[in-house]
């Protein structure tokens, strides 16, 4: 089972560290805050620092492994490919500063600073966004997530859609797994070419769609039979409240924001690597 599926299968957070106890809104804000900051700056070192801090928090909260696996699958191949394509003379239009040469298959190719910077910074920015979002998702249990979103004035039906998606996707993966097994039992070959593979999808997608529609219909009936659309104010078992730890975390974020604003104004958008905007 892929890392993505096992990630989505995670419906409860077993550990109970300070990060699990933090209010969901604070962690959600951290995700937005970190993502925006790494996009404002254009510096792989600074972005890497954000990534390290996020991963360190994830490790403390015992959710490092699924986040690292996701980054390994999505980001590492991207960096390897991106750097090769952008830093070498394969048509990246803003390449102009040669920082060295490498030999590729007997050809001496120049390595460009602009492509190298762009090729490393972009995947790192995405890494920060993914890891902080997963940090929020994996350390916030669903009851708290619902309460958090409700406090954030998200409409109840929209909250349900988000939660149902988290619950439904793993179910669908289980269902798809059973369907694949059923078709393999009827001789479906999985080690085939692309064309056959597309044809194979039909044998899985059609039963999966029918099964999903049936499940959705059943769920809608059961929800309505328990008053989902009742025109009353909903109450929750868990009440989202900010604690001292939440305020401390927010305080650290505010202090870092002030510091980085000063850095931006006095040093610039690339304070450590000193990169130029590629189109500059």
């Amino acid at each position, binding site marked *: *089972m892929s890392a993505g599926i*096992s990630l989505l299968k995670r419906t409860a957070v077993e550990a109970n560290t300070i990060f699990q106890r933090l209010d969901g809104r604070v962690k959600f804000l951290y995700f937005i805050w970190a993502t925006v900051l790494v996009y404002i700056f254009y510096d792989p070192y600074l972005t890497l620092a954000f990534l390290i801090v996020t991963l360190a928090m994830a490790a403390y909260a015992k959710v490092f492994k699924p986040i690292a696996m996701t980054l390994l699958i999505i980001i590492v191949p991207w960096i390897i490919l991106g750097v090769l394509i952008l830093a070498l003379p394969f048509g990246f239009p803003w390449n102009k500063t040669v920082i060295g040469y490498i030999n590729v298959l007997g050809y001496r190719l120049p390595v460009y600073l602009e492509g190298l910077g762009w090729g490393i910074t972009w995947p790192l920015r995405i890494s920060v966004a993914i890891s902080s979002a997963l940090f929020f998702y994996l350390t916030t249990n669903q009851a708290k997530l619902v309460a958090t979103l409700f406090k954030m004035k998200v409409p109840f039906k929209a909250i349900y859609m988000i939660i149902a998606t988290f619950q439904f996707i793993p179910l669908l993966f289980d*269902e798809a797994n*059973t*369907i694949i*097994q*059923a*078709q*393999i*039992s*009827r*001789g*479906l*070959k999985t080690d085939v070419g692309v064309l056959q593979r597309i044809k194979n999808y*039909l*044998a899985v997608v*059609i*039963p999966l769609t*029918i*099964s999903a529609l*049936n499940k959705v219909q059943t769920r809608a009936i059961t929800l309505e039979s328990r008053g989902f659309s009742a025109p009353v104010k909903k109450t929750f078992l868990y009440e989202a409240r900010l604690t001292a730890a939440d305020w401390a975390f927010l305080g650290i974020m505010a202090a870092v924001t002030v510091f980085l604003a000063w850095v931006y104004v006095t040093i610039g958008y690339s304070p450590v690597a000193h990169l130029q905007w590629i189109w500059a």
Partner: protein
Amino acid sequence: MSEPIIKVENLWYQYPESNFWALRGINLEIRRGELIALIGQNGGGKSTLAKNLNGLYKPTKGRVLVEGMDTKEVPTQEIVKRVGYVFQNPSHQIFESKVYDEVAYGPKNFGLSEDEIAERVEWALSLVGLQGYEDVHPYDLDYGKMKLLTVASVLAMKPDVLVLDEPTTGQDHRGRWILADLSKKLNREGFTIVTITHDMRYVAEVAKRTILIANGQIVMDGPTRKVLTALDILHKAAIKPPQVVQLAHALREKGIDAGDPLTVREALEEFKRLFKK
């Protein structure tokens, strides 16, 4: 006694990303022509064992030999030719828009000629009583017939062993009866049948041998009459025997020996004998 068609040797199975052993040291031999019921509580390991029999799951430890082939070494496509698996929910496998195409799907995957496929489809449909439905859309069939269609679609692959996963679940009385009758008929035709079921009446009426599984281990394996009348063992495994067995047991406790009937018909014969006395 015939050679085992399937040999399970010290089979241990653990699902990926799980530390729990779903199967713990299963040893089992299935011989050609047997009609076996696999019973046990939910989560006991019945389906996991069955999926190990046709190569869908590969043993974590130990081995499963199908006609002498180790399922760990031989591709699943080769094993499924010999051990067919009919899944519990018909909608998990039906995807073609005609009954004919649905049944032809398996043989087509084996690369058979059109003539051979047509012959197999006709044969399989006639075995389950669905001749004449070739051009019908599978989802226009009632649930009972959909179930029969899934059986036909696996039969068309002409496996030696047929695993039926909960065949009577969701069936009305008539559907249950048809499937019980079909199991016996297929067994007479030479198929080795392994049925996973919670339906003790089906077990009593159909199975010659019953295997009770609990906590990933075989608790009891023997003739169905012996297993279904071992009330203490069944009770420990949270299995309720058929009502006829319960009735005979209750009568015995009252000092009336009504024998060991498993089915209503057998009970009737016993009562006739008692009344004659």
